């Protein structure tokens, strides 16, 4: 008898029911609340917001719960939701110089106005499993100090005054948006930075690492890394002025890179830039390194053929939702194409071997 190996509606429904059961796990164990995810898995929430490109911690927590902790799946849920949202308008550019910094470090100056603020970092923790946490998560209060009220100037502004670093002139042009316009190459830097900010942390980490190991090396100093809250303002046409509509957490990294120059142009440091939602410093640093590598043409450097210099390669492959969809689609039935290949290989074998009987096996 011919048994169709085809799935049907019932198979799909049953699979979904099983999935829901697996997601919940043992019902005797307390169910995970969204507040718990938001509060205690906040860096996962941050990553889902950054790569989902939607700043909404509640929805990100829901997505993480629904995706059973698979962050790429959670990012996908957020992206699919985001695309259905109407656009009410555009905010003013955020001013990161006004950031209320929880963390602010520079690897280039021992001290500078605003100081070195370590903030809530893993950096100097010894990576020893804390078995106490398994039983009891109570923590003593961290010591407190008065927050700095005045703005913290960017480190690069001090170099700028000396004209020793390549300038980044401001612009009133509305930046492009790759979620509204199809990507075209070569892409401008605004689109590149948007693409990288949405890009997969792991992919960008690998790309950035490759530049450090010598594939288009542009030795990078972390000029500054800052994490904190910035106000978001929007012009309301009816009011005629901008009002603050909320605050968001951002991580910003500016690298100071090896200088270039020529006989006519005195040497100057160059820069890379990364800006990411939430506390995502690995990602922000990686974006800054990759941004810097992609700027080779603009900065008059040679194309060394390094992967991180290749804009089309980097931007076409950094989106994990595109990548995972296409990678996983090979699970779908391909029997029509495979059948076509099967017939072709049989035919070619028959012609090569001249033995129709054997070829029919």
């Amino acid at each position, binding site marked *: 008898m011919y048994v169709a190996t085809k799935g049907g509606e019932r198979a799909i429904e049953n699979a979904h029911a099983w999935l829901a059961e697996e997601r919940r796990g043992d019902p005797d164990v307390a169910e995970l609340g969204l507040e718990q995810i938001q509060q205690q898995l906040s860096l996962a929430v941050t990553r889902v917001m950054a790569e989902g490109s939607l700043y909404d911690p509640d929805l990100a927590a829901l997505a993480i719960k629904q995706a059973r902790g698979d962050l790429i799946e959670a990012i996908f849920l957020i992206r699919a939701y985001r695309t259905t949202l109407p656009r009410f308008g555009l905010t003013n550019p955020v001013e990161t110089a006004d950031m209320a910094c929880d963390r602010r470090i520079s690897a280039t100056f021992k001290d500078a106005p605003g100081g070195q603020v370590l903030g809530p970092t893993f950096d100097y923790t010894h990576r020893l499993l804390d078995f106490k946490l398994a039983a009891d998560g109570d923590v003593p209060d961290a010591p407190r100090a008065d927050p700095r009220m005045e703005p913290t100037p960017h480190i690069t502004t001090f170099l700028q005054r000396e004209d020793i670093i390549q300038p980044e002139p401001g612009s009133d042009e509305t930046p492009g948006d790759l*979620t509204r316009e199809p990507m075209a190459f070569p892409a401008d830097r605004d689109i590149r930075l948007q693409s990288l900010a949405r890009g997969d942390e792991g992919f960008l980490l690998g790309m950035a690492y490759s530049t450090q190991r010598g594939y288009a090396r542009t030795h990078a100093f972390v000029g500054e890394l800052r994490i904190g809250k910035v106000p978001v303002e929007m012009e309301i046409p009816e009011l005629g002025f901008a009002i603050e509509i909320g605050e968001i957490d951002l991580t910003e990294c500016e690298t100071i890179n090896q200088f270039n120059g020529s006989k006519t142009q005195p040497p100057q440091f160059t820069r890379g830039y990364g800006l990411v939602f939430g506390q995502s410093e690995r990602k922000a640093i990686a974006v800054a390194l990759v941004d810097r590598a992609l700027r080779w043409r603009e900065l008059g450097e040679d194309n060394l053929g390094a992967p991180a210099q290749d804009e089309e390669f980097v931007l076409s492959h950094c989106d994990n939702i595109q990548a995972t969809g296409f990678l996983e689609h090979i699970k779908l039935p391909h029997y*029509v194409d495979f059948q076509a*290949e099967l017939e072709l290989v049989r035919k070619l074998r028959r012609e090569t071997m001249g033995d129709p009987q054997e070829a029919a096996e």
Partner: protein
Amino acid sequence: MSAYNFAYLDEQTKRMIRRAILKGLAIPGYQVPFASREMPMPYGWGTGGVQVSAATLTPEDTLKVIDQGADDTTNAVSLRKFFERTAGVPTTEETTKATVIQTRHRIPEVELGEDQILVYQVPIPEPLRFLEPRETETRKMHSLEEYGLMHVKLYEDISQHGAIATSYAYPVKVAGRYVMDPSPIPKFDNPKMEMAAIQLFGAGREQRIYAVPPYTQVVSLDFDDYPFEPTKADHPCDLCGAEDSYLDEVIMDDAGTRMFVCSDADYCRSRRDTGHTVTAIGGTV
């Protein structure tokens, strides 16, 4: 799902897709870039086709969705359900009753009519992509009508294998100008592309839409001494006896007994419903 708009997409997105479809029809075979949206199914699973269908469907349409020629393959079931929920349009498994057919990897066996629209899901829209990975380069080649690389590839096949070693996604030239990827349909289906229906192609991840208007010349690339050959398994269907349909090969038992059945499930069923049967099923070993 009532929180979502008719056919899921918001109107601005539909307009953007509709503009791309019109330009695609005006320049047959040319890939129009469009700002593909994230859909609630993964890239690579039909997001391009779904967006094109969503921008094309009217409340009066009857939709058919097939994958590998069949209506009951899991992804076809899933996509059909999506449109039932978001557009509320009636669906059918009968090719002749459908006004919009979304397909992955097949063209139905029954000749399509003027009132039908065939929407293809396309994974890699660029026929030159496997020869040249860079979009900047392939775009230039299309603009210059520089398709030598493709002919070199086909010719290298001949010198290595004695035949063109492309059995699906076999490249075509449309209206004498653009070389186009017909999506991964078996080359058996290529000759059907000169049809009365409108053919629309959607590649979501790659952000491209292209089209072939009715009665447009579609030529499979070949050489005078190695002409294009649409091929299929050299068997009749073991269920309905059809000699002219594309076949799936099914492994029946541990001994490897094979059976061949129509890939187009509706075609096979309608033939059996009208009395075409095979009395003794003889598998081949």
